[in-house]
């Protein structure tokens, strides 16, 4: 009989303790919860430091980005890519046409007509970024966050949207860009 009453008392009191715990959690829900309302809130972005001088090693594997204005069309990244996910087409510019300088003060001699990176094939090995003489292809974020913030949310509904077309010039645009500017003097017109 005594054991029976003790059992009842123990179960009732421990049940009340358990209910107190859940009630405290219910009351404190505004102060802290574990839910992240994903599209509106995102996890803090990983800015990773590696052991050695990371300024020289482009190690944040987030997403390839190309500053197409700096690209000289050397195709080094295309050759370096182990999975061949980079496709570049270039057109040689005539001598008279000035395509401008890159940010490294290199004269651009080739017009990049097409620069596609298929991010669905990319394996984030980073090998394309090392050979680039102009440092215009890089992974976003990390040491490059001053050029482009880190971005790892690039899921798409259509797989074709994962092919990033950094340069997609039509034939007309290429022709327009490569048109030899008319000489300053109209002497040549009377020649023919």
């Amino acid at each position: 009989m005594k054991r029976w009453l003790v059992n009842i008392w123990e179960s009732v009191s421990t049940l009340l303790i358990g209910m107190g715990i859940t009630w405290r959690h219910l009351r404190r829900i505004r102060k802290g919860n574990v839910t992240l309302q994903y599209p509106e809130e995102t996890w803090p972005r990983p800015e990773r430091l590696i052991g050695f001088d990371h300024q020289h090693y482009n190690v944040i594997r987030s997403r390839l980005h190309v500053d197409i204005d700096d690209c000289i069309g050397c195709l080094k990244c295309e050759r370096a890519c182990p999975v061949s996910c980079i496709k570049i087409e270039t057109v040689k510019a005539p001598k008279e046409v000035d395509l401008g300088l890159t940010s490294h003060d290199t004269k651009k001699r080739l017009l990049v007509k097409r620069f596609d990176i298929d991010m669905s094939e990319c394996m984030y090995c980073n090998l394309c970024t090392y050979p680039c003489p102009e440092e215009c292809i890089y992974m976003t974020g990390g040491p490059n966050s001053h050029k482009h913030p880190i971005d790892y949310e690039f899921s798409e509904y259509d797989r074709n949207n994962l092919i990033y077309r950094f340069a997609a010039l039509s034939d007309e645009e290429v022709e327009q860009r490569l048109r030899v500017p008319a000489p300053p003097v109209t002497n040549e017109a009377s020649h023919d």
Partner: protein
Amino acid sequence: MTVDQIIRWFQSLSGSGEQAWMFLAAVVITGLPLFLVLATNAIVAVYVERKVSAFMQDRIGPMGQGAGFHAGKWGLLQTVADALKLLLKEDVIPSAADRKLFVLAPYIIFLAPFLAIAAIPFNQVLQVSDLNIGVFYVLAMGSFGVIGLILAGWASDNKWSLYGAMRSAAQIVSYEIPAGLSIIAVVMLVGSLNLQQIIEFQTGTRWGFLPNWVVFHNPFSFLAFFIYFISSVAEVNRTPFDIPEAESELVAGFHTEYSGMRWALFFLSEYANMLIVTAVAVIVFLGGWTSPIPGLFATAGWGLFWFLFKIGILILVMMWFRWTFPRLRVDQLMHVCWKVFIPLAMLNIFGVGVWALGVG
């Protein structure tokens, strides 16, 4: 407004005796609001349950944020979206199932709380049928749903369904006893089975400040309230007494094979049953539509409010139970019922009898 009053009103209008159309019209007029009450209760309770469970687990539950419509502010439309989804789902009946019983079972299960709510007084006047055996009728109808559970479990031709149905039959029939015994104690005190008379017994004050509710009447009736409430949690198959549908053991118990709208009927009846058992607890122990501050807010409108408010609190406590306690084992469940609750309920009857004779 009871059915009888409506029929009498029809008679006074047409000047003739009781006819079939009068009865039908009166039943429809009173039945539709009751169905709406049950459906609204399910929709609101599912939403509240999700939120309460989320908050107790440090989550935030359904939220409709961001661009587009989503589920409304704070996910308020989540249950509506769920109901629409269930309506559009494919209706699957297993080929080995007993087709007629399989189709019939969800309706029987829903019929039980729907019949029971007919006798529930929502306030001083709002009651479909003022039966002189109200408590008895509500309890009887409440346990009538177990037939539907067994039908569902048997007709599904599934071992989990059958196990769930057997367990729920054993559980519901067992827990009827302590629940009934603890109500008998109150019926002894009041001297009536009529729900309105039980509530009227509880009007006024006790010791000048407490409402004169049965739960405060004497220590035995205080204990009886807890026995009844915990037994009623077991009767509606909710955690910690949810062994009939124990997810980790029986997939979903008796409604394993049900999908779509039929499954929704099971869900509807679960919440309807919660409403019924908490309504009985409120009427019998917590003074029904009487105000917790005696003398104030005692009109019929406030009566409806207090009644629903008390029901809401008790349903919230049931949810609190659900998200706090782990499930009992079958033998533990039976132990609690037969070795703890029934002796205590017997003691209560004796104690209440002695109290009524000695103290008054």
